[in-house]
């Protein structure tokens, strides 16, 4: 069964005195167990909104989020039921996602189902490459990369089916990004967890994601296996994204800058995803244009 299934999700922000912002505008995606789906898009396109909606931190305005076919209640102010703890999140900022006043071990242990979690905590810490002694320390005693590892350990502690990672490495130093991202995808794959990896860095996702979904103004405009997206992007926006990436190499060109446009308003018809090749979906508008 598909571990994470998102159907027609809409997320809106209603701020008094301003027009309603439709941050996520009818998104449908799915992630299989052990699979890593990368979600890219420019700043403000709605990636985080979608991610938070999936774990229940944002209420859905319509649509459904199913974990193993079971729909998840939004996270109210009450305690979350055990059955819903199967979806976890890793946040972007490793400094605000850990409680600064509690020992790392305790924070992980809280997530371990049942009693006697000390051994499990040790196991988890080792799995993310930290010594067991880390459990007795406070978050400020760790570097950013180490903290993100702790966050990953905590996310894994409740034996989740799905992990949503919202830009888990963008706050880290270039030298550690790859390691942490690799660690996250490796452990997720190894444990059969579906991983939705949000990023604005397409090149970073390339190494770890099985498939990539491209988001633009609240809609998914293209979804395909990673290699396919890089080799044959079908949507113009995806192409822009790829060509704007600066490259290494003696004869790397100056990245090309797309013309800036205002918000694109798509009709449902234009936005409908069409399978243009096996496993490669693209918004209908792209097919019309080309």
């Amino acid at each position: 069964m598909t571990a994470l299934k998102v159907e027609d999700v809409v997320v809106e922000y209603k701020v008094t005195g301003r027009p309603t912002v439709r941050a996520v505008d009818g998104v449908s995606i799915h992630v299989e167990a052990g699979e890593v789906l990368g979600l890219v898009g420019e700043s403000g396109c709605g990636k985080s909104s979608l991610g938070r909606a999936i774990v229940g931190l944002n209420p859905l305005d319509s649509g459904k989020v199913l974990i193993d076919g079971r729909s998840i209640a939004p996270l109210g102010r009450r305690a979350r039921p055990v059955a819903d703890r199967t979806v976890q999140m890793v946040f972007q900022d490793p400094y605000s996602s850990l409680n600064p006043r509690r020992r790392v071990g305790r924070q992980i242990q809280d997530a371990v189902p049942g009693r006697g979690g000390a051994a499990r905590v040790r196991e988890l810490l080792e799995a993310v490459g930290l010594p067991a002694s880390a459990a007795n320390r406070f978050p400020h005693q760790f570097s950013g990369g180490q903290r993100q590892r702790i966050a990953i350990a905590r996310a894994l502690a409740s034996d989740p089916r799905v992990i949503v990672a919202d830009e888990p490495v963008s706050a880290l130093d270039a030298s550690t990004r790859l390691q942490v991202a690799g660690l996250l995808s490796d452990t997720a794959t190894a444990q059969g967890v579906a991983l939705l990896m949000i990023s604005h860095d397409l090149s970073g996702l390339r190494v770890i994601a099985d498939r990539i979904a491209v988001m633009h103004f609240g809609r998914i405009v293209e979804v395909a296996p990673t290699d396919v997206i890089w080799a044959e992007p079908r949507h113009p926006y995806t192409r822009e994204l790829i060509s704007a990436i600066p490259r290494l190499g003696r004869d790397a060109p100056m990245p090309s800058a797309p013309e800036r446009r205002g918000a694109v308003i798509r009709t449902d018809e234009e936005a409908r995803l069409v399978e243009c090749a096996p496993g490669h979906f693209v918004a209908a508008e792209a097919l019309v244009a080309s």
Partner: protein
Amino acid sequence: MTVTEQALDTVDPVGSVDKRRWIPRWRLPAAWRRPLAIVGVLIVAFWVFVMIFAPLLAPYDPLAQDSARFLPPSPEHWFGTDGVGRDVLSRVIYGARISIPIAVMLVLLSLVIGATIGALSGYFGGGVDAVAMRVVDLFFAFPAIILAMAVSAALGPSLVNAVLAIVVVSWPAYARVTRSLVIGLRDSNFIAASRLIGASPARTLGRDIAPNILGPIVVISTLELGNAILLLAGLSYLGLGAVPPTPEWGAMVSEGSRVFYNYWVALFPGLAILSIVLAFNFIGDSLRDALDPRTSRAVQSMEL
């Protein structure tokens, strides 16, 4: 050491804290202003000492009216005597036993009430919050001193009633700050993370939020200790607080104010108030400097 650990150790944890805020490091004051804080602690320690050992330190019975009236300061009476012939020094010494414990009690009471209401209202939001905040607004808009005067007038002047009156006017401030601190935290990622793994509201408030707002709350309470002493003294000055012959500093200033050329009657208790309030403010202010700027703003907002 594993390979990854080695790699991690090359990362400077400080350097990557918050890239946007590299400039403040150039100018932000050193957190703990030592000289003032130390002076503050010394003064408070002095007064606590005086408070505890008042019977040993006071040269006379603070209530005994057996000296001549209005004796100026002299070797027998360092601070002179008051209008009914009591030793001012002894009264100032015993005054510490009134002002300090009462201020502490007052702050604790207001804090417990205010922080509880503020925390619940901030965490749960919605209707509860709206109602609680309207009530708080009301108390803010309501002239505090009039409220205090009315409460005192209604229940008759006494220290207990003055404390009640001040609690009535001061809890809303704690509620407001606690609320804003809680709101600042309740949507933060670590709270979200702990709730995703099943923390109940009680657990969230008690374990995740409380320890993180404790710092600012302690700072506020220290600063408010000073304010509490001032308010209490002010009410006593107006005859709405301490009941004679209690040696309360504000009431003593009030007695002395009638005859200002017998300056010692009002001067010394006034200095006592000033010194202890100043000390609490020195400590509180230094503590606040040690706080994160965001929370310290919430703290500042309370002092209004």
